[in-house]
């Protein structure tokens, strides 16, 4: 019903019709091929989780002899046992918990946005996005697991940033195109981090924390701040 009202309204202004038709075509193509419900708030929430996680991890490191002691262990590779003793798995627990919390909150805000925009969350576009993010992430996960097995802890943080960056660049084709730029920044950070082994926590906080918050804030401002509904 509202469609007919809308249509008759714009047929009055014939000049505008082709332009509006083209905009409609573009909108429908985007809506059906990209997952556009990804909320900026998801990015902000994930970033806050990452910063909190980094803060806790830093506490653990300080309690265990400070960053210099930690760096000594990290830069001496092939000494898996010593780092395990050193941190007692606490860092991995923090990392795991941070990841789950960030993922949960990211899903929550995106779910809320898709409800508000009345776009189904689990459509074909969401599935396509998930698959294309999951491939680089899963491959990266396996590779990093092997690195860890060999005790090469110093390269874990840069590896996370690099594989996550690749996943985001790939995701740029299936969701908001701007995700690609977040991916480039993560890749750049990850590569720089390769030359600063032992400072991974700072790069993590920067990449997963600060960059997520900046990206999320920009996206929220651009797409959601003045949402029509």
């Amino acid at each position, binding site marked *: 019903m509202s469609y007919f009202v809308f249509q008759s309204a714009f047929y009055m202004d014939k000049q505008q019709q082709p332009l509006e038709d*083209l905009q409609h075509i573009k909108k*429908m193509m985007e809506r*059906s091929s990209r997952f556009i419900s990804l909320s900026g708030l998801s990015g902000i929430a994930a970033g806050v989780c990452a910063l909190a996680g980094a803060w806790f991890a830093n506490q653990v490191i300080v309690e265990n002899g400070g960053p210099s002691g930690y760096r000594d262990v990290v830069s001496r590779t092939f000494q898996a046992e010593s780092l395990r003793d050193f941190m007692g798995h606490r860092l991995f627990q923090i990392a795991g918990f941070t990841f789950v919390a960030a993922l949960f909150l990211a899903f929550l805000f995106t779910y809320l946005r898709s409800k508000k925009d009345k776009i189904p969350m689990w459509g074909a576009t969401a599935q396509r996005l998930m698959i294309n993010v999951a491939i680089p992430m899963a491959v990266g996960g396996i590779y990093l697991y092997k690195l860890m097995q060999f005790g090469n802890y110093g390269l874990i943080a840069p590896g996370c940033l690099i594989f996550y960056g690749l996943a985001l660049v790939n995701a740029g084709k299936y969701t908001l195109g701007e995700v690609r730029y977040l991916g480039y920044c993560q890749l750049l950070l990850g590569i720089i981090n390769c030359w600063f082994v032992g400072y991974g926590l700072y790069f993590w906080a920067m990449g997963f924390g600060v960059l997520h918050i900046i990206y999320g804030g920009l996206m929220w401002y651009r797409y959601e701040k003045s949402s029509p509904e």
Partner: protein
Amino acid sequence: MIENLNKIFDSRIRLGIMSTLMVNADISFNELKELLNITDGNLASHLKTLEENEYVKIHKGFIGKKTNTTYAVTKAGEKAFKIHLTALEKMIGSMK
């Protein structure tokens, strides 16, 4: 220029259906319904118009025991849509 505009694409809904099918290999009835935010009956009648003009082809399949009807654009539909799109673009170009 105007004569290149396709009467069938006068309807926003049919235009929307075609736009969606141009960028997706195939798409189910329910997905289309959710994307366009319209009722079953409304969507079915617009799809029928497109089908009668042979712009859209139907594939009836199954997911388990449930029927799954998917739609795809035909060669003729693709051509007609592109001509329509070019005509729209030219109209905008000539307005400036």
